[in-house]
């Protein structure tokens, strides 16, 4: 155990983002466990049986959100490690030259991953446990929760932390794949940047297409059931119509998994398209080229954010569409849906916050990937400065790069989320009285908040790298490595 930590200590700077992501995921998991326990005690009251069933139901919901957060966190960590490795090529090549094997090198990197996971999970978990205790105390003092003994701390808080350690370790292993391709000769030559090896294998494309197509078929079936398209065909099918959403749900999971897998195939194109809007000047054009110079890395950076935005948008669109439907119905038959409006709004808010956590982890990934990739481009920035790039142009270039990544991810997420949200609402509600074919509702305040959030993220992600990039001396480009 001492070896991973010594390798970790030597490269601690590289791992700040990894630790942050692990800490956030672990804190989220621990807080969810605490929240579920308290809620179950609150709702279930003193009846042990009722408490257990409420706890199970809440636990499943919380588990889904935790899995999403851990998944996004793993993507971010994989990316972080891949980027760190790219920057260490020279050092790894030198160690290989002296006689270290590629496998030993990779094991050492994975060891750092384990250390990152352990530290992050412990810090995040402890912080969340302490905060949960504090929050319950505060809620009792303010009278929101009735005075009682709440089981805030439990053994169940340990598994989420362990899951985070394991996924971080796994992510570092996957992210360090590139170590195996470093040759000792790279320590000698003036290594020219080569395009990243294609991850866009045919197998990956085939699997993702199969997932997307089968998922889409189920979605369409769910939609048809939900809109009542089969009612006239047969009575048996008409009876099934209320189960539209149960058909659409697996379709959504399958097709979205396919889309996430297919990210390296289509996200670079989206990035390129968005890049066209950033002007034809040198700064904009270089930024556009930079955003896709490593399609694998930018796709992975973007996909985390796409997942977060898609899920948030999906909940918001589904709930808003539902709300609009119920308000219509309420207007026609007052009293029939009393209170439903508030419940939907509340549920939507809770879900949005829970998914928002994953989006936050994804945002950390965007900030980190951009910082690291700018950091690794010291010589290139020096060359540009020598050739006459002003500090302002460098700043604009990095900002455009960041904006491109953010805008492309958010746009993709909005489109996908609206689609999924609408399908969900349609298949669930198309057959209830007053249903029919629903129009998706994308509330303006939400849209404004998303756009504002994206702009903020683009600026924040560019802050540290621009500071660093404008400090590069043109002489750096002339230095012979």
């Amino acid at each position, binding site marked *: 155990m001492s070896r991973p930590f010594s390798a970790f200590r030597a490269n601690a700077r590289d791992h700040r983002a990894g630790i942050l992501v692990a800490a956030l995921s672990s804190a989220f998991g621990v807080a969810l466990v605490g929240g579920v326990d308290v809620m179950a005690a609150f709702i279930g009251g003193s009846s042990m049986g009722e408490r257990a069933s409420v706890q199970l139901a809440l636990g499943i919901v919380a588990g889904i959100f935790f899995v999403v957060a851990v998944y996004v966190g793993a993507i971010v960590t994989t990316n972080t490690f891949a980027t760190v490795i790219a920057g260490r090529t020279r050092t790894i090549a030198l160690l290989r030259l002296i006689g270290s094997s590629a496998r030993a090198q990779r094991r050492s990197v994975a060891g750092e991953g384990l250390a990152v996971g352990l530290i992050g999970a412990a810090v995040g978990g402890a912080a969340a446990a302490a905060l949960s205790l504090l929050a319950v105390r505060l809620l009792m003092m303010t009278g929101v929760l009735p005075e009682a003994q709440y089981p805030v701390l439990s053994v169940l808080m340990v598994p989420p932390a362990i899951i985070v350690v394991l996924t971080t370790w796994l992510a570092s292993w996957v992210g360090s794949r590139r170590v195996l391709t470093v040759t000792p000769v790279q320590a000698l030559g003036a290594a020219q940047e080569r395009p990243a090896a294609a991850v866009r294998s045919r197998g990956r494309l085939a699997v993702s297409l199969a997932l997307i197509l089968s998922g889409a078929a189920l979605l369409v079936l769910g939609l048809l059931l939900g809109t009542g398209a089969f009612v006239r065909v047969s009575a048996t099918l008409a009876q099934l119509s209320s189960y539209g959403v149960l058909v659409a749900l697996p379709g959504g999971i399958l097709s979205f998994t396919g889309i996430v897998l297919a990210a390296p195939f289509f996200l670079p194109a989206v990035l390129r398209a968005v890049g066209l809007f950033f002007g034809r000047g*040198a700064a904009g054009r270089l930024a556009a080229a930079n955003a896709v110079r490593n399609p694998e890395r930018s796709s992975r950076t973007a996909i985390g954010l796409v997942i977060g935005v898609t899920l948030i948008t999906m909940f918001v669109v589904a709930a808003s569409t539902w709300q609009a439907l119920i308000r219509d119905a309420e207007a026609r038959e007052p009293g029939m849906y009393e209170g439903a409006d508030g419940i939907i709004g509340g549920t939507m808010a809770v879900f949005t916050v829970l998914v928002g956590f994953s989006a936050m982890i994804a945002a950390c990934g965007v900030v980190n990937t951009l910082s690291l990739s700018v950091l690794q481009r010291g010589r290139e920035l020096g*060359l540009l400065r*020598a050739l*006459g790039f002003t500090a302002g142009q460098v700043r604009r270039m990095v900002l455009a790069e960041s904006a491109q990544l953010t805008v492309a991810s958010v746009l993709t997420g909005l489109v996908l989320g609206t689609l999924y949200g609408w399908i969900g609402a349609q298949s669930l509600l198309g057959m209830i009285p007053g249903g029919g074919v629903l129009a998706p509702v994308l509330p303006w305040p939400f849209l404004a908040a998303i756009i504002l959030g994206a702009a903020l993220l683009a600026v924040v992600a560019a802050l540290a790298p621009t500071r660093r990039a404008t400090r590069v001396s043109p002489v750096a480009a*002339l230095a012979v490595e």
Partner: protein
Amino acid sequence: MELTLTETVARVEAATKTYGTGAGRVNALDGVTLGIPAGRFTAVMGPSGSGKSTLMHVMAGLDSVTGGRVFLGDTEITSMGDAELTLLRRRRIGFVFQSFNLVPTLDVRGNILLPFELDGRRPTREQNEWIDHLVDTLGLGGRLTHRPHELSGGQQQRAAIVRALATRPDLVFADEPTGNLDSRTGREVLGVLQEAARTFGQSIAMVTHDPVAASYADHIVFLADGRVAAERPQSSAEEISSFMLGMEARA
């Protein structure tokens, strides 16, 4: 030391550059006075640590001097700020480096046109003809859409030379331009630089420690310990070598 009477495109007067303080203090330039003749190919020679790279950096506006004055043409650049120097480099100076000359994300054409793009202008018809001429002369015609990693070292260096010459800058700085090339490709690149000076009257200052490279130049400046040790007209590689050995012996 008196400046030579031929017209100079760039000069330094009593330039000093010191790094560090106390015991770690290094005088990279120790009172250099020197003019780069206009329209000619000048080699700045010297052993490692002679200050030749530092001299190039301060003359090209990449670094500032600790004392003395630096001129490009009639413009004094000694105390220019970063923004002014950036514009100066963009418009009046060209660069060819030892390695990492090209932006990896741009193809050859994009790299060649980069100085124009940075300025937010398109090349005029005349400039386009000039670029086409350079591209043809240097045999890059079929490579314009290739990215740097698809080119050999010699082709990359020639693309960098086209970029450096494209804006017809006052002065092109070449920092060990053959350092990373095999000797045949190196000779080719040196021939191109020599031609550019002879045919187009392009002023070029090349920093090198290689006597063979310096033998292509019209004018050779020898630097040692941050001072100008000697200046020579065009010489053979043998003459330059023996002169440098003599310098070592005297030191």
